[in-house]
């Protein structure tokens, strides 16, 4: 069972905890109802919902990414526009400065310079509002604005003088003084705008690399998200499918324990579990019918033997009764009492003979109890006494001293041994021996009982079929082919197993292994 994340992990039946309450008993219709109710009473979280949820989250993440990218893009755009603006502005200033230089060098007029500075100012006024944030707040803007103002007023001063003195102004000391100031301010403004351009260029570069980073990281984040989402989904489906495959195998092996909830929520698989339980119930009922059918057949077989055995006490009673009638007056009291005692003893004997069979045949409520297998096998042999005697077969019973007790259903286990012994008797010929050997299993927690015959054996090619229901090699009417199939089912429900070893011509050995005290989920399986 792969375990994957807390949501999906769901361990297989935890077998230990169910052992505690092994109050036993086979009729568990109530258990089925309980299991179904428990399965359905959990909160619903379907695979469908998980898919929807995963996809919605994925969509949300993608949307956030897109928004972040758009915002980033806008920012870059804004910066570019600002650059353009600063560029326009500085080129106007540059132009103004060129005219200003011409004035000082050649005494050309100042109109053009004033016009350019006006243009620069108006560009600055109209656009700077828009980029106030990029101009690092109002103060920077104000500073530049003031510098432009000073530059403009200096030009204007010059211009007024030019109007009055007409010629040669650019060589006067006054003009030179203003010229120096103008040069300083002009340089200053240009430097500021160049600095702004540099800063902006860097900022754009930074924003662009930021945007690349956002692209890559959001792509990786999406990938991770997709991976997690998919693996959660896949493992949830896979692990559950695996679990159900295990259930199916278990049921096929005859283990009819119900499926109980192991997760905190229910989903589409819960419907499957409910259907499985329903199926288990059905198979169980059918198997019970088969068990009962085969038992009646076995009872039929045993009855002929019992009937014969009954003939002996009946004959004794009949002879005695008739002799009492015949000789009543000639008999002494002692003789009469002796004869009546014989009648009493023989009726008792009859009762015991019938009781054995009736005990076996009775359809009683099955119960699990601690039982002594060696006694159970001895009782079963007693039940089969006549069959064994008729067939002239010897039976050798060897059970280890202090044979450990196991938990089981006496009637059902007796049915198993009746089946195995009848099969062994059928396979043997007169004079053969049947051995029943009880010993410890390979582990100290199990016991083994082997029924060994030295009869005809089972051909290799049919050994795999003998446990199938209705498989028989016996003539019609003689064998139903249910014996081993039913035995296998009963043993599986006891947590045990049955194996066969056989060689054609030299005999067969059926070995049953039982767990000693506990067996899995005693309270969750039904007959």
């Amino acid at each position, binding site marked *: 069972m792969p375990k994957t994340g807390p949501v999906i992990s769901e361990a297989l039946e935890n077998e230990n905890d169910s052992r505690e309450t092994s109050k036993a008993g086979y009729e568990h219709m109530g258990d089925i109802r309980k299991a179904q109710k428990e399965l359905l009473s959990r909160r619903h979280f379907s695979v469908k919902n998980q898919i929807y949820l995963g996809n919605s989250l994925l969509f949300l993440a993608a949307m956030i990414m897109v928004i972040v990218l758009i915002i980033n893009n806008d920012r870059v755009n804004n910066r570019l526009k600002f650059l353009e603006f600063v560029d326009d502005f500085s080129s106007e200033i540059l132009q103004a400065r060129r005219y200003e230089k011409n004035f000082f060098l050649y005494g050309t007029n100042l109109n053009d310079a004033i016009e350019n500075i006006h243009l620069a100012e108006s560009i600055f006024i109209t656009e700077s509002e828009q980029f106030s944030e990029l101009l690092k707040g109002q103060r920077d803007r104000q500073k530049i604005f003031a510098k432009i103002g000073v530059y403009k007023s200096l030009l204007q001063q010059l211009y007024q003088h030019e109007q009055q003195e007409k010629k040669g102004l650019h060589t006067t000391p006054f003009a030179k003084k203003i010229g120096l100031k103008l040069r300083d301010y002009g340089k200053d403004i240009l430097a500021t705008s160049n600095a702004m351009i540099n800063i902006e260029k860097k900022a754009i570069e930074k924003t662009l690399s930021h945007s690349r980073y956002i692209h890559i990281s959001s792509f990786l984040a999406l990938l991770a998200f997709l991976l997690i989402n998919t693996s959660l989904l896949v493992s949830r489906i896979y692990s559950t499918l695996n679990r159900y495959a295990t259930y199916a195998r278990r049921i096929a092996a005859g283990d009819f324990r119900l499926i109980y909830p192991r997760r905190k929520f229910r989903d589409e698989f819960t419907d499957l579990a409910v259907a499985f339980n329903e199926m288990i119930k059905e198979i169980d009922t059918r198997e019970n019918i088969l068990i009962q059918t085969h038992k009646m057949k076995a009872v039929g077989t045993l009855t*002929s033997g019992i009937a014969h055995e009954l003939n002996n006490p009946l*004959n*004794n009673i*009949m*002879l005695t009764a*008739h002799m009492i009638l*015949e*000789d009543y007056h000639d008999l002494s009291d002692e003789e009469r009492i002796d004869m009546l005692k014989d009648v009493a003893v023989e009726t008792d004997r009859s009762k015991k003979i019938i009781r054995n069979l009736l005990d076996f045949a009775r359809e009683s409520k099955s119960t699990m109890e601690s039982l002594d297998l060696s006694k159970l096998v001895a009782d079963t042999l007693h039940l089969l006494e006549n069959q064994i005697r008729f067939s002239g077969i010897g039976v050798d019973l060897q059970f280890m001293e202090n044979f450990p007790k196991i938990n089981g259903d006496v009637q059902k286990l007796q049915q198993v041994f009746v089946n195995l012994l009848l099969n062994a008797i059928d396979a043997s010929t007169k004079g053969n021996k049947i051995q029943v050997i009880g010993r410890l299993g390979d582990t100290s927690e199990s016991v083994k009982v082997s029924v060994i015959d030295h009869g005809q054996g089972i051909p290799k090619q049919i050994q795999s079929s003998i446990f199938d229901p209705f498989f028989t090699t016996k003539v019609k009417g003689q064998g139903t082919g249910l014996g081993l199939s039913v035995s296998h089912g009963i043993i599986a429900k006891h947590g045990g197993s049955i194996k066969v070893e056989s060689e054609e011509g030299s005999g067969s050995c059926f070995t049953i292994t039982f767990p000693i005290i506990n067996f899995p989920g005693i309270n969750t399986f039904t007959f």
Partner: protein
Amino acid sequence: MSNPLEILLLDDEAIVGKRLKPAIEKINCNVEVFQDPQLAVERINEKEFDIVVTDIYMDDMDGMQVLDIVLKKSSRTKVIMITGYAMISLARDAMEKGAFDFIAKPFKPDELRVVIAKAAKALGSSVDLNTLLKKQER
């Protein structure tokens, strides 16, 4: 009156011998009762009986073997087989092998006496059942 018939009765049920011995003795026969087939066979080898009554079905040895032994010893001996109801087919086999008749358990003492009378007749002697029947009617 002729010599009493010599009868050997073999059944591993003690009560059968206990009850049938007086019942058969009443019709003027000598009866030796055995429970153990082995001892019975020994006795058969010692003495020739007129009639042997044997259960077919016993633990150590079955009636068929006894039948073989008896017939080998003396072919004039009449062997009557007692069977359980499930063994009718076996009884038929016994008849084929040379048994005189068979009787199925459970039976009344009279039923056996009738068969013994038939056997006696076949042996050329006779058993008077009438006196017995009259006695019973009284």
